[in-house]
């Protein structure tokens, strides 16, 4: 869409329009309706009176990085145990769920 506009308009007009678009992207939305996109698939805008970035604002959830890491750590552990089970199954033909009973 941008390409077709720039082909049709003088460069100065295109630059002015780009400036307007850029400003609109930074300014708080008068009313967020989800149709003013900064890029394809990126159309969120802060609602009036709300910050574009919540870090440092009164809405900052201040997530604990240790808590945020727990899911990926858990998944890594499950994948490792499953891999042990599958390897043992392929080797012995018997499924053993308890990895403590699987010999190295």
């Amino acid at each position, binding site marked *: 869409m941008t390409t077709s506009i720039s082909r049709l308009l003088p460069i100065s007009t295109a630059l002015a329009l780009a400036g307007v678009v850029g400003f609109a992207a930074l300014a708080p939305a008068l009313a967020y*309706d989800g149709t003013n996109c900064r890029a394809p698939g990126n159309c969120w805008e802060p609602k009036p009176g709300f910050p574009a970035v919540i870090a440092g604002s009164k809405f900052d959830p201040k997530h604990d990085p240790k808590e945020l890491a727990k899911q990926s750590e858990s998944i890594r552990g499950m994948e490792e145990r499953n891999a042990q089970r599958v390897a043992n199954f392929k080797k012995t033909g018997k499924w053993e769920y308890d990895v403590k009973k699987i010999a190295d």
Partner: protein
Amino acid sequence: MTRLTSSVSALSLVVALGAMVGAAGITPAAANDKLVELSKSTDNWPMTGKNYNANNYSEAKEITKENVKQLRPAWSFSTGVLSGHEGTPLVIGNRMYVHTSFPNITYALDLDDPGHIVWMHKPKQPATARAVACCDVVNRGLAYWPGDGKVPALILKTQLDGNVVALNAETGEEYWKVENSDIKVGSTLTIAPYVVKDEVIIGSSGAELGVRGYVTAYDVKTGEQKWRRYATGSDEDIGIGDDFNKDNPQYGQKGLGLSTWEGDAWKIGGGTNWGWYAYDPDTNLIYYGSGNPAPWNETMRPGDNKWTMTIWGRDVDTGMAKFGYQKTPHDEWDYAGVNVMMLSEQKDRTGKLRKLLTHPDRNGIVYTLDRTNGDLVSADKIDDTVNWVKQVDLKTGLPQRDPEFGTRMDHKGRDICPSAMGYHNQGHDSYDPTRQTFFMGVNHICMDWEPFMLPYRAGQFFVGATLNMYPGPKGDRQNYLGLGQVKAYDAINNKFKWEVMERFAAWGGTLATAGGVMFYGTLDGFIKARDSDTGELLWKFKLPSGVIGHPMTFTHNGTQYVAILYGVGGWAGVGLVFDLNDPTAGLGAVGAFKNLQHYTQMGGGVMVFSLDGKGPYSDPNVGEYSTKVIRAAN
């Protein structure tokens, strides 16, 4: 095809086809072929949606508009489990496989003598799994893999505690068992497994606890993980390559799984998938939806929150995404996008035959896409009372929101339609290809919504909103009745052929049959049959408990049966399951369905119907311990 076979010998055709397969590097999908064949027969119901089109449609037509009123119970089976029973049983050959909610018991029944349990698998699970289940402790069903001569036929199941189990379909013995989800971080499993080729696809649950959603493929023969793809994060994690959305770049392409989140919020951003899958052997894509972002409080997660709320088309061999269309960017209402995807081939308005995917979403829009590339074909309001969105632009795919019904901190949103339960929830709907009609079980519920801040702690609820729910504008708001509808929908001409209000909701979905009769169950415990063309109510039967699953049909020994799981519960019935009274409890469900207790109570089972109740026990000697009667001498 007729012309081709007439011009070459049968032998040369076989050789040529073999060479083509070899050249393309494609392995013949034997299991796939068997499942396709099984699903074509009216004798079987080998997957939750009947077939890979997930259309819940059977060619069986012994039961017709004229004789459906003669349906009577043929036999029944109590599962012994009280909480909600979603999904539907499977039937393969002379076996019915029945699943339950937690503790996730699986039963194999003999259709010739269903009074005898062939085998039962009752896993031991930690009770703590119940504490992290979002909305009752439901399970949506089983999957079947037909075996290959070396590995026996298998029944695949998920457990609430996060394990995936393969059972020997003949004996019920565990064949393999892997960990997919960890309840310690709030991740559970409620989804029905889905078999394609020699893989079993498994989703994830727990977005209400901040679980980052993923979908995983396992080798059905060994339990080995083949691929795992996430809903949020890096392109590599999500499975986004250079050709992602190449036909629809306006949907967004690379980098958005990180850039549409602030900081590390994507790590706890939800997007789990616990609904239904469909598969097209021609495109080699599986189709499903990722769910809501976490937390529900939108102020805590600025951005479009890609790729939650997305209809996916993924290559089943690699998990790579061919297309992704986000229906509700930056969700503000918990319109989790996991609902059923039904596949059809229909001519569009220009007369072009297209491969379509139709998806009634929680957000109150029923979407139809071209499933080869994700083109948006139509996006219609399920009911004209949907108010959060004014329209969906079919070119950009963007919903134009009505700011009046947006949510935000320090604000109580009022009369938002649909409610978080959606105008359509997890019910598995049906499509009648002869009538080109979708039959949809629809909710009619609106809500007030007030967010609050809360910290993330792994394994704890991470919602951040208080909800009050009540009937939509067409219901009875004084008496909390009129919470549902059933509708017949034409996706090409964008119209509803007929619709009818229900006292509560047709939460579990619908069944379509070639006999011109469609079936569904209601929360207050009826199974109903309507004329597929007119919606006229032809028959109903009061079940022992409310329904949140979808009916199915099968033929056995020449008789057509209709079967349905009953057992009220799920999100809609969570107040009954956990004896809750606060109207905001159960994430708002308790208030909406506060009158359900006056119509039904808990208790799960299967009820099977046939014309005049004909069935295995029509001969009363079937299943008897002894047929010899000893009479006293005169």
